[in-house]
């Protein structure tokens, strides 16, 4: 078995793994968004390039999904606040 990494190297590796994990999470979200927005926006037979409306739809789709997710968070928070005030 090899020697252990020294403390500095271990810290560096931990930071590296954390960065890579954040990148992987970002990537997973992007994959998910791509799948969802593809289904919504690309309805015809694929051509050699996106039409302007398909391109616009994909970008709007991402923005509106993120709005939706914020909207839901705010809604839940409002409910919690209400529950706290009435208890």
């Amino acid at each position, binding site marked *: 078995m*090899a*020697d252990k990494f020294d403390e500095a190297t271990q810290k560096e590796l931990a930071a590296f793994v954390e960065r*890579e994990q954040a990148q992987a999470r*970002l990537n997973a979200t992007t994959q998910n968004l791509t*799948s969802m927005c593809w289904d919504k926006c690309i309805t015809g037979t694929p051509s050699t390039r996106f039409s302007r409306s398909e391109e616009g739809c*994909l970008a709007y789709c*991402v923005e509106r999904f*993120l709005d939706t997710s914020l909207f839901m968070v705010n809604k839940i928070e409002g409910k919690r606040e209400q529950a706290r005030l009435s208890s």
Partner: protein
Amino acid sequence: MSDFLRSTTSGSTDMAARKEALMNSIRSEIALLSVQELMNKGTEKCFAKCVTKPGSSLSNSEQTCLDRCLDRYMDAFTLVSRTYIGRVSKERQEPS
């Protein structure tokens, strides 16, 4: 894949080399996973779109469709990624 874990020599240059090897292996492992995921999803989506009535073999028009479809799926990933990252960095600058 895990040769770097079994290395027996020691010393700081060796440790630096093992560190690099470990980082590279993690990087390529993650990159491979994400390419695989994109290919799997793309295959699924394009099969649904292009092969609506499976015959005894893939027809020419189905192949043309699949070819274009996978290219477009990767375009979609790039576009979605750009839009998402743009939004995230915008929100980081001016939190609402």
